[in-house]
């Protein structure tokens, strides 16, 4: 399928300059490159600007609720592990409202790709701080500056047991495509943090342009190296910002473990009879 066939006819209402466009088009290209037909791909999204991607992609989609894209995606994957499931979540979505689900998906090694459209702000609700906003961020709910420091989601993911951790940037489409391709191909939980520029409420693209760099020659299986890379930039202050695959390892997936031996039809009558016999 050609890339364009993955884009729906729905009128797009992202702001000009919004980093979500890059993510949408990178997904499109990667699906096309990997030859995944649109009927076999599912976009699962939360609620927020990022989530509109569910309407904009001509693939299967589950436009879910704020913070809950990940458990929905987990359910879909358990229900049909042959589908390619891409979960588009916002930073408000996945780091605040539904952080627990993100950590559990990593812990379980659910075979889905989670893309966090991390614009470090609540876009759709017009500009409040999120867990990755920098210290002092003055949003509508924190006009005097936020009173807590950001956390580093990559660091949390490493602790939670994620088997694939990467970072991309919405002004590096090519790098993003490479990362996404690897993420989708990775067997197990793939976590892709995208520094997605919000043109309207937190446009820090010049700062990112100055600080990002593409990883080269790192060994993603080296956990110790990954720890250092992950902490090179802490979402506050300066620091070089590595882009690319920071960590990757093999492990059995949740689907493999849960669904092992579960092929075939349920013998309902037999099951009920056996249960009755025990009572």
């Amino acid at each position, binding site marked *: 399928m050609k890339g364009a066939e993955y884009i729906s006819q729905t009128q797009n209402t992202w702001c000009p300059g919004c980093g979500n466009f890059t993510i949408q088009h990178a997904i499109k290209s990667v699906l096309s490159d990997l030859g995944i037909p649109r009927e076999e791909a599912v976009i699962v999204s939360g609620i927020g600007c990022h989530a509109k991607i569910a309407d904009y992609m001509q693939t299967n989609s589950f436009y879910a609720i704020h913070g809950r894209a990940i458990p*929905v995606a987990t359910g*879909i994957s358990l229900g049909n592990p042959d589908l390619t499931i891409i979960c588009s979540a916002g930073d408000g979505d996945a780091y605040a409202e539904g952080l627990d689900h993100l950590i559990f998906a990593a812990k379980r090694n659910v075979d889905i790709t989670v893309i966090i459209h991390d614009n470090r702000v609540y876009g759709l609700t017009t500009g409040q701080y999120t867990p990755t906003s920098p210290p002092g961020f003055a949003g509508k709910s924190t006009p005097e500056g936020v009173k807590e420091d950001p956390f580093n989601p990559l660091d949390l993911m490493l602790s939670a047991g994620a088997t694939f951790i990467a970072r991309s940037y919405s002004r590096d489409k090519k790098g993003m495509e490479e990362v996404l391709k690897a993420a989708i191909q990775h067997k197990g939980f793939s976590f892709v943090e995208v520094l997605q520029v919000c043109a309207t409420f937190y446009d820090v693209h010049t700062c990112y342009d100055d600080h990002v760099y593409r990883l080269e020659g790192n060994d993603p299986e080296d956990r110790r190296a990954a720890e250092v890379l992950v902490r090179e930039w802490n979402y506050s202050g300066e620091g070089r910002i590595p882009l690319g695959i920071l960590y990757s390892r093999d492990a059995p997936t949740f689907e493999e473990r849960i669904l092992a031996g*579960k092929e075939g039809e349920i013998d*309902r009558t037999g099951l009920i009879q056996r249960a009755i016999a025990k009572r």
Partner: protein
Amino acid sequence: MSEFTVSIGGQAGEGINRGGLLLARIAGLLGYRVYMYYDYPSLIRGGHNFATIRAAEKDCGGIARRPDFLCAMDQETIRRHTGIEIIVYDTDVAKAEGIGVPASSIIKEENASPIARNTVIIGAFCRAAGIPREIMEEAIRREFGSRAEENIRLALRGYHESREGRSVEIKTPQESPVMTGNDAIALGLIRGGLDAYVSYPMTPSSSILHTMADLARDSPLIVVHPENEIAVITMALGLSYAGKRVAVGTSGGGFCLMNEGVSLAGMAEIPVVIVMAMRPGPSTGMPTYSSQADLGFVLHAGHGEFPRIVIAPGTTNEAYEWSARAVHLAWQFQCPTFILSDKNLGEHPASTDIDPDFPIPSPSTHYREGIYRRYCTTDNGISPLRFPPVPGNVVKVNSYTHDEDGITTEEPRKAAAAMVKLIRKGATLDNEMGLYGCVRVDGISDAPIAVICFGSTGEACREVGERLSLRVVRPIVLEPFPIMQFAEALHEAEEIIIVEENATGQLASLIQRFGYTADRNIRSVNGRPFTIDELEGIIREVIE
């Protein structure tokens, strides 16, 4: 004695539940229909637990009266349960007038585990009640499987140390399983086509999870216990979207957390069955007791308006059959479908006859081929339900107000159309429910006084109704409210008495919406079921 009741009491951790189940098995093998009430506080060791087993000629779902026999594991049991004719007790730990056996010493002598003390006491009870040894042994064999021999030895020691008290009648043996409402719900869901069960433990729904997990061992049934109830419901909706028939189970607090998912299911028209097992609230309340105080909540749960089905079975058989139907209905109407249960229905074992082949209609699907639109407009408001991958098509579901393709819309006309579609589906559902017997009538069906109740209160009401020649009307389906059947059931009733286990009269308030006003309200808030005698007394009082 053509009917008898025996209680067993002791501390948590002393095997009171298991002992009760063994007594129930014995009564079953004697040819009785049995029902067991199990009372336990929310703790793991200590406290006071008791089980009351009623052995009757006909099916029953309530305990009738003071037990005839008491098996006391400790002094506390004797202190609490008074006025009982025959007390069987452990002379090593308690004093009483009754039939004492040195159960603790026997356990020590036999080098058995202390938890097996209940078997010794039950052995002693069997002798006291004139129950043949063979029946006792057979019951133990069935209850304990590989550990049967040891337990038979212990029971016989109790038996021999005991003496005859008052003999129960021996009837024609039968082979009905004794199972809880939760067991019946689990099996019913499976019968109805369930592929997956997702749940986070919460009393009194947990045993459904445990049963399902056990049944899943050697079957393709998927059982998941995720991080919390929000994950439960949303994961379930994911499974449903992917084509699995899925149910979840919880109680009040966990259900609160599912509300947002329920509303999502309503909007996105994703089928799911929700077993909501009531216990006394608000909040944590009394986790191991029972209540009917979440009816109004379940009827209104989730923001916005959407069709839903609420079914409150009142007996173990109904729990089985309606759980099976619930799966069918949920997928037919693509809406959240509730089994509204409670501790008294879910956790109390009763003799049950369920048909492993209970028939379920297969859902009609109109979509053939061509362009698939998830929410296409139809006359009856039901759009064909398909699961990805649909060749050449995409399946788009959406929590926003959406058009026929599932794309977000905020256009006033399309928004109104989307709501009209949901309402129309509700009307179709309302119609379809006319095909089922949604209202049950017991007692004297044309008696002028009608007792109205729902769920697990039904069995006690039925028995009282039979005793006092009243009409007993019990809606099994509460939403869409089966007003035609209900009106028919109340035809020419002159006085309405509503019995429910809550403080504010939630059933009364529901039927008031349909123009029926209670003349008398009987309510209870202490977490314990109405016993039949108690209820009889109260009803007698109000009708006199």
